[in-house]
């Protein structure tokens, strides 16, 4: 089977760009009438400027219907936990970039547990571990310890860290890692080189191959996405993200996938966005992805402002972060280490939960159980008393 890298290299950026720009009414209407079952051809049509201009409401209605049908009236909530802002990369859009003269911090195990308690008090069961890229200070052994520890406290532990080898992913999955988010940032090689100036992240191909390594390691879920604002032609950029998803889904069919739509936020750094992805464009992107893939998890972070987050909810969003802190120790330990980016929706988890209920959605805190995969050695069936969740008389108690 052809690897994604081969597929990627044989696909011409400007040909795709041209197809998107020249999509006609009939292409868009066909895509809508068959609910996107025409695959990437339909995605091209839905991504076109013409679709954004004349068919946005129709796309939104369809995206809403498809999302409710598949996911129901629920939104899963998660919290990011920043473990470290150490980073050996220089990337011109990121607050953690090595060139930035900021206080650096890596959480100790005790600090991680304090962060856990703070998150647990706010009901969180799904946690996303985030770090910069420093293989000496935040290497695989550190991540392994963190995952082992947190797996005893949370129902679902995912991570967004530097790309790792297949062997290392296997180790972390065995320790209970559920999902890995690894955004390509941009699929435009020239733009990628411009923004990633130094460090391991300059290696475009290694990053591009990461979801394949994850797929081979048997991970439960892979998160993809572009960072919007890095590359001028955001439509073509997102086409490649869709193509990547399409490839992975066929090849690693036991894995589920999520897609995120981060837009560059202000930070202690250097650049302004190359292109300003408008709210209208973001809506089109969300709807196009939902119609393209009805089962895809679509995630929305606190980068976006409260008003917009609420408006985007019914269009296809299935997962949200709430009350996020983007600095290591931000929930409990310290306030002085620098943030990766400034969040925009500052409401606390309770407020987000209330808002969801008011809008007719159930906020779901737990939609997984860490004992499902990765702890197969415990399959004795004799007693689960050593397991973190012991359920007695119809109730579940947790040691965390």
């Amino acid at each position: 089977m052809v690897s994604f890298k081969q597929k990627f290299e044989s696909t011409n950026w400007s040909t795709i760009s041209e197809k998107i720009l020249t999509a006609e009414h009939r292409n868009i209407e066909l895509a809508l009438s068959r609910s996107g079952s025409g695959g990437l051809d339909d995605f091209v049509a839905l991504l076109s400027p013409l679709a954004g201009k004349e068919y946005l409401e129709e796309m939104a209605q369809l995206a809403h219907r498809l999302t409710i049908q598949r996911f129901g009236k629920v939104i899963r909530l998660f919290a990011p936990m920043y473990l470290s802002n150490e980073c050996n990369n220089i990337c011109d859009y990121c607050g953690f970039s090595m060139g930035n003269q900021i206080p650096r911090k890596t959480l100790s195990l005790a600090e991680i547990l304090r962060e856990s308690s703070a998150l647990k008090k706010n009901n969180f069961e799904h946690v996303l571990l985030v770090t910069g890229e420093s293989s000496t200070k935040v290497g695989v052994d550190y991540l392994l310890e963190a995952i082992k520890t947190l797996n005893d406290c949370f129902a679902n532990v995912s991570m967004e860290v530097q790309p790792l080898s297949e062997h290392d992913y296997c180790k972390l999955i065995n320790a209970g890692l559920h999902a890995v988010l690894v955004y390509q940032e941009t699929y435009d090689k020239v733009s990628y080189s411009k923004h990633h100036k130094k460090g391991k992240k300059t290696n475009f191909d290694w990053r591009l191959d990461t979801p394949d390594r994850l797929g081979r390691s048997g991970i439960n879920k892979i998160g993809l996405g572009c960072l919007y604002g890095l590359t001028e032609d955001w439509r073509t950029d997102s086409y490649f993200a869709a193509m990547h998803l399409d490839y992975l889904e066929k090849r690693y069919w036991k894995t589920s996938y999520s897609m995120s739509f981060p837009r560059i936020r202000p930070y202690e750094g250097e650049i302004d966005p190359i292109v300003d992805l408008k709210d209208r464009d973001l809506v089109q992107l969300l709807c196009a992805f939902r119609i393209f893939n009805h089962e895809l998890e679509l995630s929305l972070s606190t980068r976006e402002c409260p008003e917009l987050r609420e408006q985007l909810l019914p269009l296809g969003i299935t997962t949200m972060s709430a009350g996020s802190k983007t600095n290591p120790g931000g929930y409990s330990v310290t306030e002085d280490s620098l943030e990766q980016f400034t969040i925009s929706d500052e409401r606390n988890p309770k407020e987000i939960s209330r808002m969801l209920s008011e809008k007719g959605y159930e906020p779901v805190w737990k939609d997984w159980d860490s004992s499902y995969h990765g702890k197969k050695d415990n399959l004795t069936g004799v007693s689960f008393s050593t397991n973190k969740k012991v359920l007695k008389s119809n109730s579940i108690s947790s040691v965390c």
Partner: protein
Amino acid sequence: MNDYFKQLEIAGEKFNSRLFVGTGKFESGEILKKSVKKSGSQMVTVAMKRANPKGAEDSILDFLDPKIVKILPNTSGVRDAKEAVFVAKMAREALGTNWLKLEIHPDPKYLMPDPIETLEATLELAKDGFVVLPYCHADPVLCKKLEDAGAAAVMPLGSPIGSNQGLESREFLRIIIEQASVPVVVDAGIGTPSQAAEAMEMGASAVLVNTAIAVSADPIAMGEAFGKAVEAGSMARIAGLGAVRSNAHATSPLTSFLS
């Protein structure tokens, strides 16, 4: 006289309703509770991955009264027999029940049940004393094999889960129902009360509905509608349906010379 309200019996337990309700996708626990009540269902499935401590904000269990409805834990999210057996045992300890809706779908996109792993897990769990209700394809041979493996009922799909497409597998369901010696519960894909009634008219022992109720604009009324449809379909089956003919049969053109 026919008993139109014959109870459903599975593994020695009797139920007045032949409607099972799934608990996912509802907008709130309160609405779930009211919908289940109105539906008259006495059997609700709960995904163990959603099971949370009682009192937790999104605890489904808080809204289900085990005195009124039987809670049927399911293994949604597992990918093979080994994981399913683990979760089954976790559910037994957690909820104090040996009843289990076994679902193994390694494919997270269409959630298609894995026949090989399902058969293997059924065999192991039944031996271990579980009352196993496996979700499976509408495959008559597989259903007989599941029965042989010790399944207390079989739960073949009508169409892909959550699709509301109805009984796309009806020709195979007919064979399964004809051959079964355990209850057949049509699970997955039922999108309207009329489709639920159709399954009952075909002779299904019960149906399981979730999405069609949960995502309705009025899940409480829809729960009631499904309850009534299942009852109507069941009654119609027992009362005896007339044969379907493609043309009128007022005369007998080929044999009238005999009279």
